[in-house]
């Protein structure tokens, strides 16, 4: 290919303009804002104003703790479930494959607000269908939203329901790229299906699993709508408040842009760390 600078940039300019204005500049800008005192006009440079507050803020540690707690429980459960779904959907023995695919993949198109409203209604105390079903089989009702542990559980269940199929789609594409003859050879050697799963499927699928895990971690780290709508602004009493919700509350309720930017950059720092771990996990062994 010979150099075609003018032509190339004519095609690139519209996108690059938008990309620079609404992505690159804000990334830099929020870093700067996080070092400014933004509660008085004009904003002034005050390097420890927000970061100092962040380090001593119990609300920040609460949100960080909740976010990490959801991360370490929900993501592994969901990814394991997604692997099971993908492997079973890929089985040649499966009949009515289309129906099963629909069941697991349908949540992918459901919006956050719609499904949050449904989950809130399903888990309500007296008339929620979940409690009615528990009651009908003789179990006691659970007050899902008045206590932290069950409220957290509802959020994790909701997020898992919404995203397991999404990950299964990606994993299924990964599974289908594993050549059949690997399995044929293993079957000829009388390797059991279970051993094939652990010694062939999982190792070959590892890069895709790590990719899904990173996507899910970064998504869950920004969790906002579910605690905003399902558990009513992070209730009970901040028990399900996440970093995303803290950012919303500080930035757009208290209009404290500097502090909210510091929270945002904490999330970015975590995301960068996780991405680096991913790169390390999937590096080419030399």
């Amino acid at each position, binding site marked *: 290919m010979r150099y075609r600078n003018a032509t190339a940039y004519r*095609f690139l300019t519209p996108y690059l303009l938008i990309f620079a204005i609404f992505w690159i500049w804000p990334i830099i800008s929020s870093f700067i804002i996080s070092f400014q005192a933004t509660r008085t006009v004009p904003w002034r440079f005050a390097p420890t104003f927000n970061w100092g507050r962040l380090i001593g803020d119990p609300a920040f540690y609460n949100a960080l703790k909740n976010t990490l707690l959801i991360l370490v429980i929900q993501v592994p459960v969901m990814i394991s479930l997604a692997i099971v779904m993908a492997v079973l959907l890929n089985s040649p023995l499966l009949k009515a494959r289309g129906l099963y695919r629909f069941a697991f993949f349908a949540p992918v198109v459901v919006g956050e607000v719609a499904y949050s409203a449904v989950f809130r209604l399903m888990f309500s105390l007296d008339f929620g269908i979940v409690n009615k079903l528990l009651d009908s089989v003789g179990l006691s009702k659970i007050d899902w939203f008045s206590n932290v542990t069950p409220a957290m559980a509802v959020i994790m269940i909701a997020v898992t*329901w919404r995203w397991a199929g999404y990950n299964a789609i990606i994993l299924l594409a990964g599974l289908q790229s594993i050549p059949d003859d690997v399995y044929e050879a293993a079957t000829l050697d009388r390797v059991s299906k279970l051993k094939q799963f652990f010694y062939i499927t999982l190792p070959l699928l590892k890069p895709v699993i790590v990719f899904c895990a990173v996507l899910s971690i970064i998504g869950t780290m920004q969790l906002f709508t579910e605690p905003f709508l399902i558990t009513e602004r992070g209730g009970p009493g901040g028990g399900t408040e996440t970093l995303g919700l803290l950012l919303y509350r500080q930035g757009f309720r208290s209009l404290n842009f500097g502090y909210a930017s510091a929270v945002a950059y904490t999330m970015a720092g975590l995301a960068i760390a996780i991405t680096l771990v991913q790169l390390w996990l999937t590096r080419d062994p030399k």
Partner: protein
Amino acid sequence: MTSRSQARLGRSIALHLFLTPLALIWLFPLWMMVVFSTMPDNGIFSPAIEMLPHDYFLENVNNLQRDTNFIGAIGISVGVAVTYTFLSVLLTSMAGWALARYEFIGKGGVVAIIFGTITLPYAVVLIPQFIMVARDFALANTWIALIVPPLFNSLGVLFMRQAFSMMPAELFDAARVEGVKEWRIFLFVALPLARPMLAALAIILFLASWNNYLWPLLINSQPGAMTAPVALGTLVGLTKVSWGGIMAGAVMLTVPMLVVFVLLQRHFIAGIAAGAVK
């Protein structure tokens, strides 16, 4: 031979015995959404277990419309999603084409920045974007505010770059020899060849815009400027609203997408799976 086919049968039965309950659990929230949307509120909030649809859907749509102008909000959502999808497909395929098909100064840098920032959380840009659009440009509560900022998406660029770079160079060289201009080659040769990829990208972008919540919630908070998810979200948690109405709204947001999903499943799955194939 018989024992082997018996073992196969046993495995097949076990497979279906495990997967069927799981599939039913997975369908349950969607099914209940439909059931709730067809029930009056005193039915939803009654001790009886109701799991079959009733016939109260249209009344619930009326109740919802009384609580908020949902039909108007749907109009905004449709208009915004269509415009956004068209513009985003155009911008990202132009950029993807340049990155796939030309050598130019700064190419490595452009690719590095797009790749390097792809895993940064969206939260990082939220506040400056809001300050810029609402204060500096004074564009809050407009369609532009909903459509333009989300156009930065970089996955689309990488997806289209991949699509164009897999096409054989001879196709385009032949046109160049005949003196066809580059933009005509892009529009009339490359784009038609990329139709399946464009369809996959368009579906994913449309869905993202249709379901987008946080940005529209922040930037278009005036009642007449809200998108459908935002309008619906304002009702969740209020005391004097019709929950049947909220569920009818959820159904109106979800069912059209489910139909699209069933009809265009192949493109849908290709679009999502593309994230994994680097």
